[in-house]
């Protein structure tokens, strides 16, 4: 098929002549592509200064072995053409979304962020070099990356020819795009605004040596600071279960502050945003009991007992709210549909499973050890994306 002129004008990478091709999920060519992608990416000289790209390399290698896991004894093919509408302010999100579509056996049109992230340029240059290999000519023909600012016309055009849309963005974005027509058989996978939190078992932490507390703070640093708390999977609240232990809690925060001091590079705007956000929260909330500011490295806020609606209380650039609860069961009072990731320390999987299945929860799609919150995965927001983006053919 020949893509509409309006679309063609905004292609940053891909063929003018576009072919929709579907394959079985996790086919060998795609797996090779992932492996080669990670190899090429690793060659990039300054790769170590981009933790999100390091994780991307790791992710590609992790998922090359997933085909066994995926095998569900169903005959599957990709749905067709997937239109990915990716957030403009997360540098690497678009490539994961693309891989979700690719791994499930589809052709893809990917809207890349309009901002000039270095990560975006690096990723696109690697994809480009692979597309130019003879081996991947068929992938080149069946996938393209486009870039445009907020033009409904283009979004409408692509929507009208796609078989599925993957929509990342604010609630408003998701709602706006959902109003645009897609063919009757097409589906939408939506990834709207979510919030995340952490839960730490004090009774367990108490038994650890101080080194282990430091290590936990280091892991929490990744969860809390990697995306400046702007991603859906960044924690804002930390719940402490077990016997209240102010000394231990304070020790954890002071260790975190030290790590931030060493590792996090604050720009002026980060500090101004953080202070402004704190003032906003103070004005908007009823009953904060205590605020610690750790020289702007870290803000820790103790909301009062009346603070129960936490889904819209958000921090930024290292602002956390803490609450003590008796046991993990009590967490249920704070979980709404909007809750995505819970990162934890000090619970067994059985304890977590019991909590998740027996409390009539409408939220929480992901529970991971502290330190893994930022890691995007094929299973996301409750979908197994590669299954949702492929179709089953019944054969008897």
């Amino acid at each position, binding site marked *: 098929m020949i893509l509409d002129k309006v679309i063609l004008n905004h292609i940053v990478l891909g063929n003018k002549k576009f072919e929709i091709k579907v394959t079985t999920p996790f086919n060998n060519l795609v797996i090779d592509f992932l492996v080669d992608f990670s190899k090429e990416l690793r060659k990039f000289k300054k790769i170590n200064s981009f933790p999100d790209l390091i994780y991307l390399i790791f992710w590609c290698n992790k998922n090359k072995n997933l085909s066994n896991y995926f095998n569900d004894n169903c005959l599957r093919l990709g749905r067709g053409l997937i239109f990915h509408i990716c957030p403009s*302010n997360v540098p690497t999100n678009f490539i994961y979304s693309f891989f979700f579509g690719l791994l499930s056996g589809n052709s893809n049109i990917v809207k890349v962020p309009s901002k000039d992230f270095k990560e975006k340029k690096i990723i696109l240059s690697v994809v480009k070099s692979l597309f130019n290999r003879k081996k991947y000519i068929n992938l080149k023909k069946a996938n393209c990356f486009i870039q445009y600012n907020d033009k409904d016309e283009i979004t409408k055009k692509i929507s009208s020819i796609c078989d599925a849309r993957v929509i990342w963005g604010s609630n408003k974005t998701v709602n706006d795009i959902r109003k645009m027509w897609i063919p009757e058989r097409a589906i939408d996978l939506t990834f709207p605004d979510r919030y995340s939190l952490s839960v730490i078992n004090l009774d367990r932490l108490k038994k650890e040596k101080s080194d282990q507390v430091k290590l936990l703070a280091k892991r929490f640093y990744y969860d809390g600071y990697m995306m400046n708390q702007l991603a859906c999977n960044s924690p804002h609240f930390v719940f402490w279960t077990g016997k209240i232990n102010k000394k231990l809690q304070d020790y954890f925060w002071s260790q975190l502050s030290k790590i931030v001091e060493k590792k996090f590079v604050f720009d*002026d705007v980060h500090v101004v945003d953080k202070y*402004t956000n704190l003032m906003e929260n103070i*004005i908007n909330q009823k009953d904060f009991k205590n605020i610690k500011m750790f020289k702007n490295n870290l803000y820790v806020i103790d909301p009062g007992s009346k603070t129960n609606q936490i889904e819209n209380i958000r921090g930024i650039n290292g602002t956390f709210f803490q609450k003590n609860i008796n046991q993990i069961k009590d967490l249920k009072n704070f979980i709404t549909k909007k809750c995505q990731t819970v990162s934890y320390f000090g619970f067994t999987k059985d304890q977590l499973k019991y909590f998740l299945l027996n409390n009539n929860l409408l939220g929480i799609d992901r529970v991971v050890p502290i330190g893994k919150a930022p890691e995007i995965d094929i299973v996301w927001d409750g979908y197994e994306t590669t299954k949702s983006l492929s179709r089953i053919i019944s054969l008897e």
Partner: protein
Amino acid sequence: MNINSLQKFNPFDVNKREKNKIYTNQIKLLNLHHYKRCGKYKKIINNLKFKIKNKNKLEDFPMLPVRIFKKFDLKSVSEDKIVKKLVSSGTSGRELSKIYLDKKNASDQVRVLGKIMSTILGNKRLPMIIIDQDPKTLGKPIFDARAAAIYGFSIFGTKHCYLLDKENKIDYVSLNNFLKKYSKNKFLIFGFTSLVYENLIQKLSINLIKSNFQNGILIHGGGWKKMEKLKINNAIFKEKLIRKINLNKIYNYYGLVEQTGSVFIESGKCGYFHTSIYSDIFIRDKKFNVLKNKKKGLIQLISLLPTSYPGHNILTEDIGEIIGEDNCKCGLKGKYFLVHGRIKEAEIRGCSDIR
């Protein structure tokens, strides 16, 4: 705060010791005033556990981030006392600051602005060209900062001539009439920096004007954001005006719509902004430590004027550096400083925006 008690001072002739005496007392009173009358302000002070009645150093008083005036209506007077609402000009689509003035606050601002301006213009009102459209003919419903600045500054002039017509084009007929009548003596030119650049430096056709700007005094302000993109700094800006229209008395002003009145005017002799008896400045690092002179950081501005809203102590989003205090070669007392522009916008990372 009673501004009258400061009227006896020349605004730029008060040294550090004298000023400190006045400020530690006045800011404490001002803080208490807002604490008692503005619920949102009180909440902030309480949450920061700031002991409002203790003796505190000036730099330890809590500052409000400037953006908070965009997010909330902050008032320290009852609704019925408000006579004027100022709204920041702001780039389109962005949230706007809303500043609520009662009668006293509005008149204090005018008086203080007058005092500061008189140090440059003298006490006589001068014929005045405004590098803008006449806000009256535009019929703007709200008091935006651009209109407010024009109205605020226009009281220092007379025989007002607006350079731009309704179509935003240079009105050569009015301009030539004005110059013919008044350019032989001192006259005042006022405008936003970017509009002065666009119109006087770029668009103005020398062939179409019948006189010159040699006796003009230009007062301009409103930010260098647009100029930065064009790579025009203050020195180049001045040089271009001298070369093109022989205008050499040029004064940049710096101030916040949140602290209208206590503006800072570039001294003609040294090129620095100076604090007056009505204002003070600190430069802070990213940990909010106060920085020494000649170190760049975030600008915090203090003004004694805001009484109807808690805008007396503000953390701006501008970067600057203090050069010195009380010892400037130009002779003016107070801290003298430079403004290096707006903080860089962050590459915001998050999932909530797809533009």
